[in-house]
């Protein structure tokens, strides 16, 4: 529940930039510092990050599709399809992909989110070709077997029970989200409603695959000890010949106006209450003035960027109202999003007291711009994390893949530190005033019911992102 700036941060890549040449030939690569960008003739993007610190490589294939692309009634189909992607092709039958990667000392998995679905392998650098061969095969030739589908759907339902149904805070978050948005597809759970999973068919999954899985809707990101031009050659060899699809244009589902505070209560067996509240905010991809998005990012740092930040300082220490607190803002979402505040109250503290205290923290900023020193602490963490994040190929590649897939373009990574550093105290105050209003507020509370654990059988001694 705490992270933010430190996780969202980016590397400044500020060297010379060669622009795309538009022609019928494959364009010259766009190189910026250690990110090398290519495009295949069929429209597939290839982004390569050189990093020679270890003889390994991360390969990720990103598709522009996720839960926010799903119509109502079909929620969860992107994630179920992600599971089906391991069920084989005519060339590599079910299970063989994983078997080959494992035998070659690799690790692999996949993840589905609101705005993307991605498949990855981590492996010795000289094994990259295996990954690309098999990824290209399953991009266009996936098997759809009814038996496999039925079993895998049961696995996904177990996943939903494990991650959501039996986790009171996750259930609260799901309801919060569904209430907060009226028509923005971010209201839908990534894993899907159980009812939709119960009625999902093999045909639904196949149609989803045929609609969205094509080279012109995909980006390959490779990071590690590799030669970028060689990676590009391999990518051309395996993906260059794949047919394109006509990718549908999504109907707009931008959030309609909200007219007042929205509230939900979740009463389920639990032990500890929980409060989650959020305000509708723009994101970098939707905002007219990009400084607003960076100011919201700084605001999340001021509130929750480390143990010295305001929520920890004032609510956990200070007034001792909460045992844990969080603030989060998704700068790189595809659509308008929510700035979320959450808290687990201290013993005997009512959730409405926490709600008032969180609002007070916002009101303080609305009334008085933060001081310079506080802002500088946020920026210092951003600059440091720009170094730290390079310790992980996987994370770095994920940043690049996300930016490209939500439509911002990977080059936006270069703007991050400058964007955050340029934010003034007054700008933080302005976004707090503009967006943290009742007409954008949703509050959900977990109100525990007894767990009845005391009626135990005789010998008992009681003592956002879904991966495959």
């Amino acid at each position, binding site marked *: 529940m705490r992270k933010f700036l430190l996780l969202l941060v980016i590397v400044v890549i500020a060297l010379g930039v060669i622009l795309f040449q538009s022609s019928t030939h494959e364009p010259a690569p766009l190189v910026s510092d250690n990110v090398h960008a290519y495009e295949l003739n069929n429209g597939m993007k290839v982004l390569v990050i050189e990093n020679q*610190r*270890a*003889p*390994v490589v991360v390969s990720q294939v990103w598709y522009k599709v996720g839960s926010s692309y799903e119509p109502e009634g079909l929620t969860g189909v992107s994630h179920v399809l992600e599971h089906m992607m391991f069920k084989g092709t005519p*060339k*590599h039958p*079910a*299970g*063989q992909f*994983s*078997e*080959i990667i*494992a*035998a*070659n*000392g690799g*690790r692999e998995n996949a993840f589905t989110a609101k705005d993307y679905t991605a498949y990855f392998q*981590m492996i*010795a650098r000289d*094994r990259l070709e295996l990954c690309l061969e098999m990824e290209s095969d399953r991009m266009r030739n996936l098997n759809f077997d009814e038996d496999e589908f*039925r*079993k895998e759907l*049961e*696995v*996904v339902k*177990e996943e939903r*029970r*494990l991650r959501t*149904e*039996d986790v009171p805070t996750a259930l609260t978050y799901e309801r919060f989200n569904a209430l907060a948005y009226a028509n923005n597809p971010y209201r839908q759970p990534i894993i899907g409603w159980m009812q939709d999973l119960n009625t999902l068919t093999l045909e639904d999954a196949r149609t989803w695959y045929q609609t969205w899985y094509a080279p012109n809707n995909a980006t390959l990101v490779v990071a590690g000890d590799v030669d970028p031009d060689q990676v590009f050659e391999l990518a051309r060899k395996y993906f260059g010949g794949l047919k394109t699809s006509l990718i549908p244009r999504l109907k707009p589902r931008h959030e309609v106006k909200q007219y007042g505070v929205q509230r939900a209560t979740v009463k389920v*067996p639990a*032990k500890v209450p929980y409060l989650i509240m959020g305000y509708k905010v723009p994101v970098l991809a939707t905002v007219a003035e990009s400084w607003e998005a960076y100011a919201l990012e700084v605001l999340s740092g001021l509130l929750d960027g480390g*143990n*010295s*930040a305001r929520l*920890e*300082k004032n609510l956990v*220490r200070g007034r*001792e109202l909460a045992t844990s607190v969080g603030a989060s803002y998704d700068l790189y979402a595809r659509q308008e999003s929510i700035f979320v505040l959450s808290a*687990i109250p*201290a*013993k005997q503290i009512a959730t409405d007291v926490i709600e008032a205290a969180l609002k007070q923290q916002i009101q303080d900023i609305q009334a008085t711009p933060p001081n310079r020193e506080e802002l*500088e602490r946020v920026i210092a*963490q*951003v600059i*440091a*994390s720009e*170094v730290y994040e390079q*310790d*992980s*190929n996987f994370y770095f590649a994920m940043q690049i893949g996300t930016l490209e897939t939500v439509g911002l373009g990977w080059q936006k990574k270069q703007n991050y530190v400058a964007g955050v550093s340029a934010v003034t105290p007054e700008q933080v105050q302005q976004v707090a005033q503009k967006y943290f209003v009742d007409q954008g507020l949703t509050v959900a509370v977990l109100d*525990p019911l007894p767990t009845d*654990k005391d*009626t*135990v*059988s005789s010998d*008992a*001694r*009681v*003592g956002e992102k879904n991966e495959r």
Partner: protein
Amino acid sequence: MSVKICSKMIALALALLLPSLAQAIPEIQHWQTDNGSRVVFVPVSGLPMVDIRIVFDAGSARDAGKSGLAALTNGLLAEGAGGLSAQQIAERFEAVGALFSNNAQRDMAYLGMRSLSEKKYLDTAIQALGSVLTSPDFPAEAFARELAHMKVAAESRQQSPGDIAEEAFYKAIYHDHPYASPVAGTPQSLQGLSIKDVRAFYQKYYVAKNAVIAIVGALDRAQAEALVTRISAALPAGERADDLPPVPEPDKAQEIRIDYPSQQSHIYVGQPGMKRADKDYMALYVANHPFGGSGFASRLVETVREKRGLAYSVYSYFMPMREAGPFLMALQTRSDQTEEALALLREELANYLEQGPSDAELQASINNISGSFPLNLDSNSKLLGYIAMIGFYDLPLDYLQSFVARVEAVSADEAHAAMQQRIHPDRLVTVVVGNGGAQKP
């Protein structure tokens, strides 16, 4: 045809894997400080950053009946030190972009830091870290607050069927051994902790001879030595913690059913497993891999998930600890499938103990473990965790260099024999938490 492609690719794997390994494995430098701390260090240039972890034999195994004391002590270190408040300490770290971290487990408790290596940042961060390490104040209000937080956290674990199952499992396999109680304490045990307990625990266990200091990053040897001196010279020498008692062998099977209003049953089956320094460590580690330790390549996933769709997550592991850590098989399944899944788990174990791994399974596992070894060392943070573990458990300094050869030396017979000798299917502990708990047949 596709099978042919597969075996060809596996053959390729065998032939090509090793050459790329050698250069990836770093040498660990080692020395001892004047006051008796053991230091492990790997210089890594390339990124201007430093990771430090100071590990003490001060985990919950040292709670001595006061469950939660080790975690509480560890959690209070940065809540006031050297006259600085928690807020001031956090500001010192964060103003230079440093990340402070701390954690307590059963064997170890540690604190650590990631910082930029540039002197003006590192100096500030090191000074704060030194204070937290050597002169925590344990202010009364921080003690009360932290304890209150731990009580809420202990309650919230009681709303997680997985946490309830884990706690019951440890209690059942460890009986009176110090590993039995939960690291973060129980609502009842926390009630009895005092600030005096915390001070005494700190004075006894947070001492130089009981510490391993691990460093990875952009420093040379002289800089690393100077850094170690700065943070730890003020630690009293003290004594290394006593040996823990050995874990008794299980004597009988036990089945524990706990009713909980969840949709799934959480099933834990296991027994005490192996020590970090166990003579059969590698054989058991390799033996578990094809059984339940290799994800989609494992028998458990194949049988329970791929063939029957009974669970999202199913696995087994040996967790090696100073004394015998647990061997555990676990899954979660819809309540009405509880008995079917539990029977499968037991049947798979019985089959595996009888047959052992096939030669092909064993070879695939060895290829995977050795081939993926560089992935365990491909970042400073992973390297830090590894060398801290090597230092803490007194493993040989060439542990990383010899790892692949030791994996490859394990034969199918050896793996099979070790598994048969160690695992006692007639003396396993079974814990089921969920509505399935009420439906005992």
